[in-house]
C-alpha cells in the first residue's frame, strides 16, 4: 500500500512546515507531549505539596494562625486559622492532586509517552493525534479541578476516596459545587488516561523495532505496558462510579443513598475495585525505571530478568482480587475478610522477589553512586518499608486497631513518596539529558537527594508511631482527645520536617529550570546505557531515529565478556549476531 506504507509518514514528513503552535502546543510528537505532561504534573506536584504543609500546620500547631495565612479568604481560614471544613478540603485535595494530577501523570503520562516509542525503536506512538488529545483532555481536567477551590461552599471535602454518602449529599458537608467539579474532573481525566493506555498498548504490541522481542524489552517498558493494561481496565470502573455519584447529586438517583434502597458500600467496592489496581499503577512504572537505572549504574545485568517480569505479572493479577483489604472494617461480610487477607498477603511474595532481585543486581556490581542511582536505591530502601508496613494492615486482627490511623498514612507515603517519588527523581534525572539535551546539575542533585531523604524520613517515619498510638487519620485537631495529647510533640516535629521537606524541593525545581538553559550539554549516551533511546541524538529529532534501529539483544548486557567496554547497546551488531528473523518482519524495508 503505497498511500499508507508508513502511517507516521504524513504526521512527520513536513515537520519544518509546522507552526510553533503545531510543534509545541498542539503537538502530536510523543516527546513534546511527554514534556507537556511533565510540566503540568510538576505543577500538580507542587500544588499537592503546598496543600500538604498547609494541613500539616493545623496538626502541628492546632488553632494557631498560619504565617501569611491572612491572604486566605474568610471561608477557608479567617485570620489565618484553618476552618475544619477547609482542613477536610485540604486533606481531600492533597490526596487528589498527588494521586491523580502528580504521581500518575508523572509515571504514566510523562514516561509512558516519552520512553515507549524511544525505547522500542518506534518513530512515534501508534496514534499520535489521539496522544495529543490525551494531553488536551488532561489539561482542562486539571484546570477544572483547580477551579473547585473557588466555588461557594469550598472544594470537595469527603476525602480523595469520596466515600458516599458523605460525598453524595451537600447536606452532610456543605460542599456542593466543589464535589461535583471533583467528580467531573476525575471522569474527564479518566478519558485522557484511557486514550493514553489504548495508545501505549497498541504501540508496544505493534511498533517494536525489528529484533525487539518481548523478552528483549526493558523492564521499564514491561512495567509501563502492564500499567497501561491496569489503567485501561481500572479507570473505567472509577469513571462509572464517579458518574453514578454525580447523578446522585444532580438528577436525584439513589445509588449510594441508604435512605432509598441504595448501598453506601457499593461506592467503596467500586472505588477500591478501581483503587487497588490504581495503587499498582502508581508503583509498577517506578519499579520498571528503578530496574533500568540500578542495572545501568551497577554496570551489571538485571538479576532475574524473567522473574522480574513474572513478579510484575503476578502483582498485576493479584491487584484485581485484593480490593477488599481497604474495607476490612467497613461492614463488608467478615467472612470475606479472611479471603482478602490471604490474597493480600500473597502480594508480599512478588514484592519480595523484586526487592531481592534489585539487591541481586547490585551484588558484585561496579556501582556508580550518581544522582539517579542514589534516588533509585532510595526507592528500594523505602519501598521495602512501605511493603513491610503493609503486612500489618493485611493481618486482619491487627488492622482492626491500625485501620484509618496514621499507620496507614505512613504506609501510603512510604510507597508513594518513598517509592514512586524517589523513582521519579531518579527517572527525571536519568532521562533529562535525553529530553532536554542537557545534564542536570549533579551537585545540586546530590544535596537535594540527601536533604530529601533525611526530611522525608523525619516526616513520615514518626507517623508509624502516631498510628501505633491510635492517632486517627483526617482529624482536624488531635488535642480534642486525651489519649492523643501526649503525641502532640511528635505532630509538631512532623510538621516542621514536612515544611523543610517541601522547601528542599525548591532545589529540585531550581535544578530542573536552570539545567534546561545552562546545564552541561549532554552527549547521545551520557550514562553509557544499552537502551535504544541512547543511540539517537539528545534530544531526539522528530521521528526519533534517522534509520530504523535493529535490536540484537536484551537491554541489560552490562560488563559482558564479549566486549571490552562495560556496556553493549541493544542495537550494536557483533560478529555472529543474527539479523532479526524474516518471519517477524514481513513488511521490513
Amino acid at each position: 500500500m503505497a498511500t499508507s506504507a508508513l502511517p507516521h509518514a504524513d504526521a512527520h514528513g513536513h515537520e519544518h512546515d509546522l507552526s510553533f503552535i503545531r510543534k509545541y502546543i498542539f503537538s502530536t510528537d510523543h516527546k513534546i507531549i511527554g514534556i507537556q505532561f511533565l510540566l503540568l504534573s510538576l505543577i500538580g506536584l507542587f500544588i499537592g505539596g503546598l496543600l500538604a504543609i498547609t494541613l500539616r500546620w493545623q496538626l502541628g500547631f492546632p488553632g494557631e494562625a498560619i504565617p501569611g495565612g491572612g491572604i486566605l479568604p474568610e471561608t477557608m481560614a479567617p485570620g489565618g486559622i484553618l476552618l475544619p471544613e477547609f482542613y477536610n478540603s485540604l486533606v481531600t485535595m492533597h490526596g487528589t492532586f498527588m494521586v491523580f494530577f502528580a504521581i500518575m501523570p508523572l509515571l504514566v503520562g510523562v514516561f509512558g509517552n516519552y520512553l515507549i516509542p524511544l525505547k522500542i525503536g518506534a518513530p512515534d506512538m501508534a496514534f499520535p493525534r489521539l496522544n495529543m488529545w490525551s494531553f488536551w483532555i488532561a489539561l482542562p481536567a486539571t484546570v477544572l479541578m483547580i477551579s473547585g477551590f473557588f466555588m461557594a461552599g469550598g472544594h470537595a471535602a469527603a476525602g480523595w476516596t469520596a466515600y458516599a454518602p458523605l460525598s453524595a449529599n451537600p447536606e452532610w458537608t456543605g460542599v456542593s459545587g466543589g464535589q461535583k467539579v471533583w467528580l467531573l474532573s476525575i471522569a474527564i481525566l479518566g478519558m485522557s488516561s484511557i486514550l493514553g493506555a489504548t495508545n501505549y498498548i497498541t504501540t508496544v504490541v505493534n511498533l517494536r523495532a525489528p529484533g525487539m522481542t518481548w523478552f528483549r524489552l526493558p523492564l521499564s517498558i514491561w512495567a509501563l505496558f502492564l500499567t497501561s493494561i491496569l489503567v485501561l481496565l481500572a479507570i473505567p470502573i472509577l469513571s462509572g462510579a464517579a458518574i453514578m455519584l454525580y447523578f446522585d447529586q444532580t438528577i436525584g438517583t439513589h445509588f449510594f443513598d441508604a435512605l432509598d434502597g441504595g448501598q453506601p458500600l457499593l461506592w467503596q467496592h467500586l472505588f477500591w475495585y478501581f483503587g487497588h489496581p490504581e495503587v499498582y499503577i502508581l508503583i509498577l512504572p517506578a519499579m520498571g525505571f528503578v530496574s533500568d537505572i540500578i542495572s545501568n549504574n551497577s554496570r551489571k545485568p538485571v538479576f532475574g530478568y524473567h522473574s522480574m517480569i513474572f513478579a510484575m505479572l503476578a502483582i498485576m493479577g493479584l491487584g484485581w482480587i485484593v480490593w477488599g483489604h481497604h474495607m476490612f472494617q467497613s461492614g463488608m461480610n467478615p467472612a470475606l475478610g479472611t479471603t482478602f487477607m490471604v490474597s493480600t498477603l500473597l502480594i508480599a511474595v512478588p514484592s519480595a522477589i523484586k526487592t531481592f532481585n534489585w539487591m541481586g543486581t547490585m551484588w558484585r556490581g561496579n556501582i556508580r553512586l550518581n544522582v539517579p542511582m542514589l534516588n533509585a536505591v532510595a526507592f528500594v530502601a523505602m519501598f521495602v518499608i512501605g511493603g513491610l508496613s503493609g503486612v500489618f494492615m493485611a493481618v486482619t486482627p491487627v488492622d482492626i486497631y491500625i485501620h484509618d490511623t496514621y499507620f496507614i498514612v505512613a504506609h501510603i507515603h512510604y510507597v508513594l513518596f518513598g517509592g514512586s517519588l524517589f523513582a521519579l527523581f531518579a527517572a527525571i534525572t536519568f532521562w533529562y539529558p535525553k529530553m532536554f539535551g542537557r545534564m542536570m546539575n549533579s551537585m545540586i542533585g546530590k544535596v537535594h537527594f540527601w536533604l530529601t531523604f533525611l526530611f522525608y524520613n523525619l516526616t513520615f517515619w514518626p507517623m508509624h508511631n502516631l498510628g501505633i498510638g491510635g492517632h486517627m487519620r483526617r482529624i482536624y485537631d488531635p488535642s480534642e482527645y486525651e489519649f492523643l495529647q501526649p503525641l502532640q510533640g511528635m505532630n509538631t516535629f512532623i510538621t516542621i520536617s514536612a515544611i523543610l521537606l517541601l522547601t528542599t524541593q525548591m532545589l529540585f525545581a531550581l535544578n530542573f529550570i536552570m539545567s534546561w538553559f545552562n546545564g552541561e550539554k549532554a552527549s547521545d549516551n551520557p550514562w553509557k546505557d544499552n537502551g535504544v533511546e541512547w543511540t539517537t541524538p539528545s534530544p531526539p529529532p522528530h521521528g526519533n531515529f534517522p534509520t530504523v534501529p535493529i535490536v540484537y539483544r536484551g537491554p541489560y548486557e552490562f560488563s559482558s565478556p564479549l566486549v571490552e567496554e562495560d556496556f553493549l547497546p541493544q542495537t550494536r551488531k557483533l560478529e555472529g549476531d543474527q539479523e532479526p528473523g524474516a518471519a517477524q518482519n514481513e513488511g521490513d524495508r
Partner: protein
Amino acid sequence: MRGFVLAATMVAFMACGGGDGGDGGESGTAAAAAAAPLGNGSITGVIHFEGMAPSNPTIDMAEEAECAEKHMGQPIDPVVTVTDGMLANVFIRVTGGLPAGPYPMPSQPARIDQDGCLYHPRVLGVMVGQDLEITNSDPLLHNIKAVPTENRPFNISQPTDGMTTTRTFNTPEIMVPLECNVHGWMNAYIGVVEHPYFAVSGADGAFNIAGLPDGTYQIEAWHETLGTQTGEVTITGGAGSIEFTFSGA
C-alpha cells in the same frame, strides 16, 4: 475546528464553574440601603399565652463541660418560653398593606450568638440582603447548618471562641432553620423578609415594628411549635397596636 472545540469546552467549564460559584447576594443591597424610611409610625403589640405551657425538654450537656458550666442546674431547651402568660420567640411580620418598595435596609447587621451551646436569640429576622453575623462564644466547635428550602444552604463551622462569620440570604423565606450537628439540641429559626417590618416578641411578649406610614396592614405571627396566626392592624396618627393569643395543648 479543533481550536473551536477546545474553546467551546473551556467556555463550558467556565460556565459550569460560574454557575455554582459566587455568593452574588450583595448586588441588591446598595440600592435598598439608600431608600428612605416609609414613615414614622409604629405597630406595638403583645403575645399572650393561655392554657398549660408544655414543659420544655432538658438537655444532656454532660459531655460538654464548658457549656454545662454556663447554665445553672439542668439546661433546658427553650422551645416554648412563657413568662406570666406572655409568649416569647414569636416572629411577627407585615405580610400585606405595604406601599411598594424599595425598603430601607436596617443599619445594623442581624446578630446571632452561640453561647452555652444554645443559640441566642433562638428566633430572629433578617431582611433579604442584610448581613447576618454569627458568633461563637463557646471555646469549642460549633457548626452552623442552615437548611432552607428557598435560599442557598450553608454548613460552616466555628472551631474557636470569638469567631464571627457573616452570611446573607437572598430570597424571602419563613423560616430558615439553623442547626448544629455537634450539638443536636441546638436550634434556631431565621425569618428572611423582603422588607424590614418584622419583630420578635421578647420575654414579656411585647414587640414593636417601626418606620411605617399610616395605613392598614396584614400581620402574621409565627411560633415554631404553636403555629401561625394572622391579624390586621391600622396605624393612625403614627400608632397602632395588635395582640395575638397562642394556646397550649
